[in-house]
């Protein structure tokens, strides 16, 4: 049930991003909602289900973005696994820690796309603009907390049994006080 909801939610975010958000002025930045969703999956979902969703949305993103098939699945999966590792070792599930996490994750994703495309097709160089990247990172940092809270609430609502869901869909809780409750 939660997986179906997450797939549908991701598709809706992609549709919103490719249609409605396009009407926003360019200086506003047009936040990358699907990227935020992948970060949410990386910090909140267990490894197997989250990896499948990250791969799926990477494949879907390839259809609607860019010309290189395979680029987004790899980058989304790498990002997902890095976030999974970080969330196990660091206290990044606190709201205040998610702001720099999102900003750094976005920088990592943008750099990866830039490096991959520059190395593989050097004759078609992309143009890195620090102003745009910083603006996008800032916008994502600002909206990440309400975004994550909203999706945490939604996943709790769609969980058929919240106690089971905490063990089943989320990671196993330990005695570590930094684990998300």
């Amino acid at each position: 049930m939660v997986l179906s909801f997450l797939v549908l939610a991701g598709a809706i975010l992609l549709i919103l991003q490719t249609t409605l958000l396009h009407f926003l002025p360019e200086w506003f930045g047009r936040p990358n909602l699907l990227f935020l969703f992948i970060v949410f999956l990386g910090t909140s979902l267990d490894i197997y289900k989250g990896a499948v969703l990250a791969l799926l949305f990477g494949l879907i993103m390839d259809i609607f973005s860019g010309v290189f098939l395979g680029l987004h699945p790899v980058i989304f999966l790498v990002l997902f696994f890095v976030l999974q590792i970080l969330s196990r070792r660091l206290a990044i599930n606190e709201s205040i820690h998610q702001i720099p996490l999102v900003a750094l994750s976005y920088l990592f994703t943008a750099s990866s796309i830039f490096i991959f495309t520059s190395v593989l097709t050097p004759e078609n160089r992309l143009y890195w603009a620090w102003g745009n990247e910083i603006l996008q990172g800032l916008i994502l940092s600002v909206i990440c907390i309400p975004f994550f809270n909203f999706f945490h609430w939604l996943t709790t609502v769609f969980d058929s049994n919240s106690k089971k869901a905490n063990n089943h869909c989320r990671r196993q809780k330990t005695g570590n006080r930094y684990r998300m409750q």
Partner: protein
Amino acid sequence: MRKKNKRARQIRLFLFFGLLLTLFIIMLVSMVSRQEFNAPQKLALEVIGTAQYGMTVATGSLNNVWRNYTALINVREENARLREELRKNKAVNNEYREAVATNVRLAKLLEMKETLPPPTLTAEIIGVDPSQWFKTIIINRGSSDGVQTGMPVVTVEGVVGQVTNTSPHFAKILLAIDPNSALDGLVQKTRVQGIIKGGGAGFHMEYVLKNNEVEKGDLIVTSGIGGIFPKGVPIGTVSKVEKAGRGMFQVIEIEPAVDFSQLEHLIIVMKKDPLVK
């Protein structure tokens, strides 16, 4: 117990790196091979494209209601009519200029055969690339309408891009301003040829020797070489020319003829068997 946990952890690490390596190899292979959509990708494009189309229609309707409410209807209608007339006149004027230039140059040298222009199909944009790195769009025409990969896409103002992937009812267009786009163009006045590459917001004209005359304000049009784009379609206007000290070529920047931020409706030139797939 500890040994089992360690082994399980090793297996997970092995699976993780193995999966990443496999995906990396898949990505590399797909990047160097054909970039066409397979059946699941076409299905995903059909499903999500339908939702995009619905969203675009809904927002378009709301947008129209708002515009009618906030603007004087008569003034708006007249403005739209005059803009359309101006756009048509600009296109006709450009065609006449191109025709005169070609006629003067070739009339006594070549035998010119009359050919019928290829049929065209109008399309509406229903989705835009969500990433800021690439410039692609989704339109509401697909292979069931006769759209094929490689077909050029234009508007009355000029070159827009090229069809890269299709599904039965939708298609993906690579805009000419995308860094991965390259088309052959020439300076309308002097017939100097070069390669027009996308630069994100505008174009760069490359491989133009320093001894070729190119000035700011010159109109750049398609050359027709390669048989992809019809000849003489406006690409843009030269905005900057730099003859740097080193190197054989000039650095030429081009302001696009088409306003890519205001694109709504496009024209697909239905060329049979487009060369680039």
